[in-house]
Each structure stands twice: as structure tokens, then as C-alpha cells.
């Protein structure tokens, strides 16, 4: 019995010393519940673990809970893909208060939001790519519950885009064309309604965003409001709950950042530097997401595929020394 305890003690002290030898220590990364974010989280995990010797754990997350937990409790350390607009005020304040630090853009082009229609509808009638065409053909977009109306699929309940989608719905006077705003309830509901319409070649008109696996898989066309982007009005009115008189504007590109806690950024500048360089273009991300969808891959598998086959991209983010270590670890997989 004594021997057993001794062995266990030795084992634990070995583990402890192994951890103590690492310069980096424990790092937690938020593994958000959508595919592009989970992919980036896995890439970060692998590179931090093998390139920087960190002991990395992934914790499940979602935009608001993760942001709040990072501000209030300093955990997790890294949010690899945060759509900043969805929590604009909170994040701005936290950055000013030195609680969070923005490392860089995870998506260099920014996220793309808008109202979309399936490509096959535009191929049949090119006018549907514009809002006037959509409104003139309102009959094609059936309401899921009431055949006499047309349906516009809005943003899921409680998301920040719900406010902007509602204001734009009002500004575009879609109700006058017979549309009713349908709340899909969740992103799964929204994606499901789109997939159902697409598989059967039916009409679908609603809010969506890119890069996403859904828009990588189903070819959609962003409807042109013919208004251009009115950035000031968008930030001051369209996205605000109390917007008296919303005007028509296209969605400006939405900044998508890698955010870390201030404590983490000051403790590990080398890792922070990597995070500030790590960034994807939308084209790259769409291809990767489509690959993920085609192969039904999880975050760790797409990570392997990316690190193996897109070396020229990720080696730019790290020093050659780190790159060698990561490559060595990759070869051992």
C-alpha cells in the first residue's frame, strides 16, 4: 500500500515538474459552437501546445457568455473568433478598462452579413438579386405557416442582428409587399429552413452571414438594396434598439477579432504576437468550411488538414523555430 502511494506521489511530482518546466503554463481557449470558430480554436490549440509548450484546454463557448466570462473572471484566456458587433458596447468598455485586448482580425475581410436568396432563383430571374425584384415576386417566398403571406426569415431570437434585421425589414417596407418577419428561434432553425428550401428548389429569403458552412455549401446571392453602405446610420441607428426612423443601408463588413484577456496578453507576449498575425481571408475560410462540410469533419480533423496542406499560410504567423516544432509534432500525428 505504502509502495503504491509512493509511486503515485512520484508520478504526480513528475507531472508537476513537467508542467513547471514549461514557460507558458495553462491556457484556455474558447471553443465556440460554430464551425469556423471551432476550427480556429483547434489550430490555436495545436500551435500553442507544440510550438509554444503551453498546456492548452478548450472550453465550450458562445459569443455573449464567453465575452462576459472573460471580462468578469478572466477566463477563458483566448476567444479566437469574436464577432465584435454582437457585443460592441461591452467589448469597447472592457478594452478601455484594460480587461480585454484585441489581438487582431481572425477574418481579415470581416464577416459578411445581408439578406440572401438562393442562386437558382436569380438564375431564373436576375431581377431577384435586387430588393425591388424580391418585393415584386413576393409570392415566390412562402410563409411557413400561412400560405397567403410571404415569409422573411429573420435573425434568431436574442441575437444582436435581430435588431438590425428588424429595422431593415421596416425600412425596406417589406411588410407592404406582403412579407412577414419569421423568427426562426435559433441558428439551427434558420439553417434548417434554408436547407429545406434549397433541397427542394423552393423560394427562401432571409438574413444570413458568411463565412459559414451553410453559405459555403448552398450557393446564395446577397440581395442588393441599391442603397450602398451608410456606415454612420448603421452604427447609430440600425443596430440600436431605439431607432426611430431606420433608413435602408447594406450591412458594412463586420469586424471579426481574436480577443484575449489583458492578463494573458501581458504575460505571454510571444503567444499574443502569434494571435495578432493569425488571420484568414473569407475565400480561404469558405473553402476550408466547405471541405469540413463535405467530409463531416470535426475541428481536430480540419485542423490537421489545414496544417498539413496549407503550410505557406500558417508558417507566416510563427517564427521558423516554432514552425519546426509544430511540423515535428504534425509528423508524429
Amino acid at each position, binding site marked *: 500500500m505504502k509502495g503504491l502511494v509512493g509511486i503515485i506521489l512520484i508520478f504526480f511530482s513528475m507531472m508537476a515538474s513537467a508542467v513547471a518546466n514549461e514557460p507558458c503554463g495553462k491556457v484556455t481557449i474558447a471553443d465556440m459552437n460554430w464551425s469556423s470558430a471551432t476550427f480556429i480554436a483547434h489550430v490555436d490549440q495545436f500551435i500553442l501546445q507544440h510550438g509554444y509548450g503551453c498546456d492548452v484546454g478548450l472550453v465550450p463557448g458562445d459569443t455573449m457568455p464567453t465575452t462576459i466570462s472573460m471580462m468578469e473572471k478572466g477566463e477563458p484566456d483566448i476567444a479566437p473568433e469574436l464577432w465584435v458587433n454582437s457585443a460592441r458596447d461591452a467589448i469597447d468598455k472592457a478594452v478601455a478598462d484594460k480587461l480585454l485586448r484585441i489581438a487582431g482580425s481572425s477574418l481579415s475581410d470581416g464577416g459578411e452579413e445581408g439578406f440572401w436568396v438562393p442562386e437558382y432563383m436569380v438564375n431564373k430571374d436576375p431581377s431577384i438579386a435586387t430588393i425591388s425584384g424580391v418585393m415584386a415576386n413576393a409570392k415566390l417566398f412562402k410563409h411557413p405557416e400561412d400560405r397567403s403571406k410571404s415569409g422573411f426569415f429573420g435573425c434568431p431570437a436574442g441575437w444582436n442582428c435581430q435588431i438590425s434585421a428588424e429595422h431593415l425589414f421596416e425600412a425596406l417596407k417589406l411588410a407592404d409587399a406582403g412579407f412577414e418577419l*419569421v423568427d426562426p*428561434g435559433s441558428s439551427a432553425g434558420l439553417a434548417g429552413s434554408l436547407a429545406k428550401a434549397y*433541397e*427542394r428548389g423552393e423560394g427562401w429569403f432571409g438574413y444570413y452571414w458568411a463565412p459559414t458552412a451553410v453559405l459555403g455549401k448552398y450557393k446564395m446571392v446577397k440581395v442588393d438594396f441599391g442603397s450602398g453602405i451608410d456606415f454612420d446610420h448603421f452604427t447609430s441607428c440600425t443596430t440600436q434598439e431605439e431607432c426611430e426612423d431606420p433608413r435602408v443601408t447594406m450591412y458594412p463588413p463586420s469586424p471579426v477579432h481574436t480577443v484575449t484577456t489583458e492578463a494573458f496578453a501581458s504575460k505571454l507576449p510571444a503567444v499574443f504576437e502569434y494571435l495578432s498575425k493569425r488571420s484568414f481571408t473569407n475565400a480561404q475560410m469558405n473553402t476550408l468550411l466547405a471541405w469540413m462540410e463535405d467530409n463531416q469533419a470535426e475541428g481536430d480533423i480540419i485542423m490537421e488538414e489545414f496544417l498539413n496542406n496549407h503550410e505557406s499560410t500558417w508558417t507566416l504567423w510563427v517564427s521558423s523555430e516554432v514552425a519546426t516544432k509544430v511540423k515535428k509534432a504534425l509528423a508524429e500525428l
Partner: protein
Amino acid sequence: MAKESWLTKFPAMDRQDLTAIKKSLDGAYREFSRNYGELIESFFDPLLYFLVWFEKLLLETPWWIVIIVVTGIVHLSARSVKLSVGVVIALCLIGYFGMWDNTMRTLSIITVCTLVSIALGIPIGIMMARSNRVQSIVNPILDIMQTMPAFVYLIPVVMLLGIGKIPGVIAVVIYAIPPVIRLTNLGIRLVDPEVLEAATAYGANKSQRLWGVQLPLAMPTIMAGVNQTIMMALAMVVVASMIGVKGLGQPVLKSITNQYFTLGLFNGLAIVALAIIFDRVSQAYAKRTQRHMEGTHS
């Protein structure tokens, strides 16, 4: 590190094969939904019209008529002044806090779900009680229905029928129907065989035995099942709103994503109020049927 062998690592299926299986099953389901989706959708159309009509009825009826009717139903079934007063107060508070419309939507969908569950559940329960074979087939299916996470079947249903009321009703019924089936089965099986024998001796045929002896004697158990079914249906309100069912679930979802605790609490309490009304009514009704029977027997 030691080389991996089947002793240290479970000899799992090859990743490519697994992907192939997943992809072909998904593909087959898509194909099925493309070919038969519209047909299945039109099959549910009558139910959809009824749902829309019933919701409109509850929404467009002036609030005080709804309160009078609901209280009337409560009073007729429970015959308790205290409960009736409580119902009026609860409904007035719901209205005062601005949750009237959503509560009516939830009330309408829960009522329909309960009726569908009873209409399907009691006959299935009777069949189970009559045949051990049916029981051995239905029981594992009920286990699956109660434990399978709702989202696993929600998304395929959305692919087939779109979002909104119909997939919502299907999801709620799948989750809520098992208690009424199980307890109908149990109630009938627990009827004293000697009573049945006596009924047979008086020349009662099969259906007379069922309607005149088994069902009345099993009624308290069946009502307990109905009661549980209603409770479980109400618990599914939030999940159903994740596929676009309007009602009290939507503000709850909204409050979860935005951390509006008060909004969540108010709407949660409204769901609880509905649950208590349904619960007390069905329990009081069950108790009264029982008392009535005791009276005739003694």
C-alpha cells in the same frame, strides 16, 4: 511513446469508412426529404390549419372572455373556489406584465399537443395492455422517445417540414406522449382480474368490458398519465421555440442569449402558471371521477 495497438486504443472503424457511412445516410435522408417532403407536408396541412385557427381564436377573443372561459372550465372540472380565484389572479398578472399574447400562443399549442397526445396515446396504451407482444415492441420505442435529445430529431424534422408549428407539435408530442401510453397500459393491467371475470359472467363482451369496466377503473391512473404528459409538454415550450414556434419560449431564449434575467424569470413564471392551472385541473378532475366511482361502489 509506445506504439499504439488495439490493446491501448479501441480498434475503431477507419475514419474514411465512418465518413462514408455518415455521408451516405445524410444523402439518403436528403433524397427522401426532396422526394416525399411535400407529400408529408400536405398530410399535416389540416393540423396546421387547425393550429393557426385555434391560435387566432385565442388571440382575437377579448381577454376578459378568455379569462371567463378558462375560469369556467377550471371551476367545472375542479369545483374549487380557491383555485378559480387563483386562476383569475394568475391570468390577470400575466396580462398586466404584457405577456398575454405569448401566453395565448403557448396555451393554444399546448392544448393541441395534449389533445393529440391523448388521442394517440390512450389507444396505443390499450393495445399495449391487451397484448404482451405489442408491449415488448412499444416499450423500447418509448424509452428512446423519452431520452433521445430533442435536437437530434428536431433538425431532420425541420428539413422535412420547415420551421414553425407543425415540427414544434411533433417534437413536443414525441417527448410528452410516453407517460400517457405507459400509465394507460399500467392502469388497465392493474384492473382486478376477478372484476373482469364477474363482468364476463354477466355476459359482457370485449368492448363492453373495455368501456364499462377496464377504462373506468383505470381512469385515475390514466389521468395521472395525462397530467404528466401536460407537464412534459410545457417543459418543451422553450425547445420548441428554437425551431420558430411563437410563444413564451421565445422571450426565454432571448433572455438566455442576452442575460436579461428578469425577462427570463417573468416568462418562466408565466409557463409555471400555465402548468399549475393545467395540473390542478387535470388532478382535480381525476380525483372527482374517482370519488364518484367510490360512491357508486360502496
